[in-house]
């Protein structure tokens, strides 16, 4: 079973990398970009019997730092 884990910074947490990307887009002349936030996509290939609780534990214990990040799991 393939999973895609999206890890994003919580709202309100400063994202200097997103800001730098935003500036670069402005520099390229793309108008109308209101905000940029950078996150991570982690792809997992797990045993079919892996349940939601196990995936949640993986996210909480390692893949995301829940002090600063949110995560969302998508089943491919």
């Amino acid at each position: 079973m393939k999973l895609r884990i999206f890890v994003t910074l919580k709202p309100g947490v400063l994202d200097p990398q997103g800001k730098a990307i935003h500036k670069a887009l402005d520099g390229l002349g793309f108008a109308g970009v209101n905000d940029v936030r950078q996150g991570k996509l982690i792809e997992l290939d797990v045993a079919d019997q892996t349940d939601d609780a196990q995936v949640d534990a993986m996210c909480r214990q390692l893949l995301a730092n829940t002090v600063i990040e949110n995560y969302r799991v998508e089943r491919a």
Partner: protein
Amino acid sequence: MKTAVIVFPGANCDRDLAVALESVTGVKPDMVWHGDSTLPEGVGLVAVPGGFSYGDYLRSGAIAARSPIMRAVVEGAEKGLPVLGVCNGFQVLTEAGLLPGALMRNEGLNFVCRPVSLTVENAQSTFTGRYAQGETITIPVAHHDGNYFADADTLDRIEGEGRVAFRYAGTVNGSARGIAGLLNDRGNVLGMMPHPERRIEAAHGGDDGRRLFEGLLEAVGA
């Protein structure tokens, strides 16, 4: 005092810490590999060094914080064993849950590498007894991810409990409330971005860092 320095793949300040500890305690520290699951008998201090453990993969300190030896370090810290984390070591301690908050990419995105002025905010701790309250000291920093973050409630709580050990005297990395060094609630764990081990003798430009190790030795006892 017997001390231990944890060695992770990608750490690069482990030997600097060992030199500083030996110079102050007179005893060569035990270098403990991250794959070990126990600390040597009778260790009075564990130092978690700076560097780029596991190439900063995933998040700085994230993988190192889940290594076998860190379970022993967390257990020791919970029983009162003094633990010092410097730079990447500070990141490892937050990732391991020994200190609150997280260290994020520097506000200006630059790697900051220079001596900085720090204000000693708490001179009563196990680690800071050789400093005067409110004293300004100079210790070098060298990091990309030193921008301390915690939510407002956590910041108010740690400030109220006197757990900010050191604060940047100027702007360095965008750290919340200028926090450069942070103690746990019990006061036996200190994480700091500046490198005290790089300021232990006149040839380094001063010995403000040495006093941290001397104070620690005095507090913990030989």
